[in-house]
């Protein structure tokens, strides 16, 4: 047990002399690892959202994509630095032969801190936070800006179906959400029973449907295509069945659709009108 008492310091300091070229010193090697991993992180930042996110049909959806890319690019150097030091420590400073040993390797150097480095770390993370924040607030402001000529849509969630109504078109009420292209849509969302989450996925926005309250969210469409409205808030038994289909169509097609459904508001697939055979 006497080994407990002995202070062993590692004999040859593994640091090469100060004159050594930068890239043969640990800091230089870590810099290279950092650089490589940062590049990988940035590439992932551009690749992953582009290939994994669905095709967004609105300005807000594009903002989701841009935000994910930006934040990945910002975070990549930080993560790469931590990973770089971590990996390098495993490769370069692991004391070989001690993995199964009950005796510890000699102690490392007693570095208890470095106020300069700490301050630098705080400043860098502070700057990153400010950048993130400014970006987020700017996005938030643009998403909340009011637009003239916006289309109002009332959304009602109930266990376990969405219904949509168009106050500008004689309160036409439907089960699927059809929207015109290049138009700001303001959704007024409420619920008949419990809390639901109104999430038109490809529009990149969502807001909860709360009973007895109307919440609003807006999205500006900029691309034609089909999308899905899902429920993002656990709402009971058939939560997973609570979805609706939607489409962004040309303004002309939207007008035609409104006209076609305006009178009787029937959404059944146009099955031939046969009399009930029973």
């Amino acid at each position, binding site marked *: 047990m006497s080994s407990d008492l002995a202070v062993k310091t590692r004999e040859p300091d593994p640091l090469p002399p100060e004159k050594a070229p930068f890239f043969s010193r640990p800091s230089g090697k870590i810099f290279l690892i950092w650089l490589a991993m940062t590049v990988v992180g940035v590439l992932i930042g551009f690749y992953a959202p582009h290939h994994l996110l669905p095709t967004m049909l609105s300005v807000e959806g594009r903002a989701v994509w841009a935000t994910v890319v930006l934040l990945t690019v910002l975070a990549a150097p930080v993560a790469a630095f931590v990973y770089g030091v971590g990996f390098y420590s495993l490769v370069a400073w692991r004391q070989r032969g001690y993995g199964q040993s009950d005796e510890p390797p000699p102690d490392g150097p007693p570095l208890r801190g470095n106020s300069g480095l700490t301050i630098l770390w705080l400043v860098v993370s502070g700057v990153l936070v400010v950048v993130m924040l400014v970006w987020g607030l700017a996005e938030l402001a643009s998403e909340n800006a009011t637009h003239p000529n916006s289309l109002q849509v009332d959304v009602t969630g109930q266990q376990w179906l969405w219904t949509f109504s168009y106050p500008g078109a004689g309160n036409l009420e439907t*089960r699927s959400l059809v929207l015109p292209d290049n138009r700001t849509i303001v959704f007024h969302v409420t619920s*008949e*029973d419990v809390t639901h989450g109104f999430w038109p996925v490809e529009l990149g926005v969502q807001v909860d449907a709360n009973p007895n309250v109307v919440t609003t969210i807006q999205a500006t469409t900029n691309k034609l295509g089909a999308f899905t409205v899902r429920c993002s808030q656990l709402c009971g*038994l*058939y939560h997973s069945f609570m*979805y609706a289909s939607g489409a962004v169509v040309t303004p002309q097609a939207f007008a035609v659709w409104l006209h076609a459904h305006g009178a009787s508001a029937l959404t059944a697939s146009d099955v031939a009108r*046969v009399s*009930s055979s029973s």
Partner: protein
Amino acid sequence: MSEKPGRERKPKALGIILTFVAVAIGVAVVAILFHAQTYTSPVGTQVAKSVGTVTVNGQTLQHVTLAFNTYPDASGSVDGQAIHPGGNPSWPSYGPTNQFQVPAHALVTVTMRQYDSGGSLNNPWFATVRGTVGSVARINGRLVHAVNPNNVGHTFTVRGAPGTDPGFFVNVPLPAVPGNNQSDNGQYETVIFSFVSGSQGVYGWNCEYPCGTSVAGFGGPMSAFGYMSGFLHVV
């Protein structure tokens, strides 16, 4: 002393602890399976009866029928067909089962007896017949497009699991029988409707009239699988 070994823990003592852990996990698993069992329909699936073919819009479709009812309680007091005689006998219930199987793209004709009283829908949208052939239902012999949203007993509302045919949707309001309480006096409304089934997949149906417990009326039977909800398997 410095090399004094750890206390001689008897493996037996540890064995007891592990038994305890295992028993706790086992109890949990059994409870869950018991629970899952409780909420699957005890009667099984009603397979639609084929009654030949029918021509719709020049297309020849298989024609099948289903028959089921809605009851004011699950005790079987009306005709012995309520589906959860052992569960919560006082809850309103569909019967004789909550799981139905129909062929894809077939004309399905449903004959129902609605024995329950009722009231107002949370959302009057469900008072309109939707998705059936002609968007009508034959209620007590009369073809109707919609019923009074303040006098609905239950609804039969079908839509698909995510990823199934989005065009397949059926909503049929079932008018209430007179009476303020859940009456089991045997009075009923006959509702007959036909729809063309969608493509293959799991479709869920439920009732949209708040016949359950709690504030919005969606607790109890509305939230427990099998009373006011079930599956329509399209094969």
